[in-house]
């Protein structure tokens, strides 16, 4: 039974951390090498694609999606999709997909370029080759070079607030539980002297 408990808490934390890792914004320093548009037929991976219908028809089974091709500082390729999140989840409220695509195209920089243009790509989501899923780019910003450090202030603040919130709820729950148990003990042992 001890193992069952461990498995339960392991799965619990894996889900929580996975969810946060997928949803929270991250910054990649990369070189954009191409931007393109490709038709995507959603299959079992449809949960990993935006479902925003910000002005477009609702829930089509396929549509054209913007993509941004990039190479990160470690020389490995990373492909981002560029989709509106609209009013849906995750709450980035992104509607400027076409503008972002224009900005990304403007910042292209190939390996052969004499002075490489590095950019910071803010994104959320995962790249997974087996599922054909891509992180969603939120914004691109030119940076001075491949060595810049970006401090994730938003994540620091949000995670701190979340931790404080859950600790608060947890502490109150513990207090409530122990008080109730004490009351029960008092009830059972009443008159024992």
């Amino acid at each position: 039974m001890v193992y069952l408990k461990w498995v339960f808490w392991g799965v619990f934390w894996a889900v929580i951390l996975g969810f946060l890792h997928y949803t929270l914004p991250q910054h990649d320093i990369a070189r954009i090498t191409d931007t393109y548009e490709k038709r995507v037929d959603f299959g079992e991976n449809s949960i990993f694609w935006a479902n925003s219908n910000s002005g477009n028809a609702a829930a089509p089974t396929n549509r054209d999606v913007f993509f941004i091709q990039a190479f990160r500082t470690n020389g490995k390729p990373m492909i981002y999709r560029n989709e509106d999140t609209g009013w849906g989840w995750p709450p980035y409220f992104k509607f400027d997909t076409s503008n972002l695509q224009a900005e990304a195209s403007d910042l292209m920089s190939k390996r052969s370029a004499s002075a490489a243009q590095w950019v910071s790509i803010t994104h959320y989501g995962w790249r997974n080759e087996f599922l054909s899923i891509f992180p969603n780019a939120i914004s691109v910003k030119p940076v001075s070079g491949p060595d810049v450090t970006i401090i994730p202030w938003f994540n620091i603040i949000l995670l701190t607030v979340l931790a404080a919130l859950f600790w608060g709820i947890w502490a109150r729950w513990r207090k409530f539980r122990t008080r109730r148990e004490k009351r029960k003990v008092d009830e059972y042992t009443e008159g024992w002297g």
Partner: protein
Amino acid sequence: MLALAKLILIGGVILTVLYIALSIWSRRTRRGKLEAEWLVSGRPGDEDEFVDAGLKEYDGSVRRKLILGVYVVPIAVIATIVYLTNFK
């Protein structure tokens, strides 16, 4: 627009539940404090009258209107995110 309607509807329901719960909790806390105050200040007159007067004062107070922040804060946060994501 359907997505926006969904957000407003679901968000509105959650926030309204939160607003009502907070209002009830706050009023009950106030009542408890007034009852304690009545005891401490040497039981002036009728307890119910004392508490009712105090609650009437609470009904018009800024403190109670602060609970409207339940609606104001999320709307402000969403407006800020919309601006930061799309127009900056």
